[in-house]
């Protein structure tokens, strides 16, 4: 039971972290490097999950991705499959909830890279993508890594939105935070204790690492 929840949590969080890394960097780069209409609105929209009650975010996800949802109905008509009550749904919930942390940290550190380095790379014939991968990203890596680890921890602790879209099905969508809730609700104190301690330990290590990375000096 404990093992099952831990395994599922790690599966969900692994997928979520990879998606957050790619999508978060894309949005961070877009927001840091381009000026376009509605840019700050987009930033505000992406930040919403940070301040809204997770149940509200979860509600919107159902509204979008549910079987009769705006996008979900297309998917359901096409494939007969819906993300609601699946572990993939839990991944989506974790991504949406944790993404703002990645975007905020990465955007700030990408913006802090002296643009002359990038221009120098362009004058040396390198494309924007190559410049981003070889110059910008290595120079922004502290903030990017910190954002990624925080997102990982946030995804691991995700509860409300996950419950809304993926439900609480043991062995299928019951991640650790949900298992803790159920353990407490059913009076299984020992299980709740073990799960809570494991979750705390992982999160503590993550935040500790984030702080270490943020404080480390690179390239003076």
């Amino acid at each position, binding site marked *: 039971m404990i093992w099952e929840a831990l395994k599922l949590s790690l599966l969900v969080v692994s997928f979520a972290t990879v998606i957050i890394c790619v999508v978060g960097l894309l949005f961070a780069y877009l927001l840091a490097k381009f000026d376009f209409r509605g840019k700050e609105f987009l930033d505000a929209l992406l930040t919403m999950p940070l301040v809204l009650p997770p149940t509200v975010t979860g509600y919107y996800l159902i509204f979008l991705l549910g079987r009769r949802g705006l996008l979900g109905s297309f998917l359901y008509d096409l494939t007969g499959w819906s993300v609601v009550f699946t572990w993939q749904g839990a991944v989506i919930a974790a991504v949406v909830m944790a993404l703002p942390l990645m975007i905020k940290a990465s955007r700030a550190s990408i913006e802090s890279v*002296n643009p*002359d*380095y990038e*221009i*120098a*790379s*362009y*004058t*040396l*014939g*390198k*494309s924007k993508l190559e410049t981003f991968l*070889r*110059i910008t990203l*290595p*120079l922004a890596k502290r903030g990017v890594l910190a954002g990624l680890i925080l997102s990982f921890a946030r995804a691991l602790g995700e509860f409300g939105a996950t419950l809304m879209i993926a439900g609480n099905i043991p062995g299928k969508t019951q991640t650790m935070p949900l298992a803790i809730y159920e353990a407490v609700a059913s009076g299984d104190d020992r299980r709740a204790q073990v799960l809570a301690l494991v979750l705390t330990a992982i999160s503590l290590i993550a935040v500790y690492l984030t702080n270490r990375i943020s404080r480390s000096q*690179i*390239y*003076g």
Partner: protein
Amino acid sequence: MLDVNVKKRLGGDLPKGFLLDISFAVDGGITVLAGASGAGKTTTLRLIAGILTPDEGIIKVGDETYFDSGQNVDLSIQKRQVGFVFQDYALFPHLTAEQNIAYGIKAKSKTARAEKAMEMLALFHIEHIRTRIPREMSGGEQQRVAVARALASDPAVLLLDEPLSAVDVETRSKLLDEIEAAQAQTGIPFVYVTHNEAEAVRLGKQRITLEKGRVVKT
């Protein structure tokens, strides 16, 4: 070799904005672009390199047109064969001297790239700092790496934006010798921006003076 005839309005910075309206031609050798700060020297270099876009005009290097507002030609920075030495060098802080220099070398094979990098290190007598990153180098060493990096990509023209403003007077004279030697050895035309009269006199067989966005003397 290099033909520039461009206009660019820069708003905001000065009262009522600032109009850069310049026209000059450069042949081989070192050409000094002199003038007080705010005269438009750095902007001129940035227009040539494609970092900034002129409002109108023509920029040509050799037979190649980099910019022509009449023909709608505007080559990207990457496609212009322009080497650029920044005032603060803009060396990649996470790469060693050798990696900085090798970064823009266009040769396909790894050995050819390594050879070219060694050649540039030797040209500027900086083999001994090959494995150092910029913060472990002196100002003069950083300056040498910056010029070597820009030349290593085989540009058609090299633009230097006040490259010696951050080094002390003693080192300056030595570096000027090296820049002249590097120009002679590579045969690439240099356009050298400075507001320092002594430097301008020292280097300037060919000299263009800017004042308030216009060429006043060539």
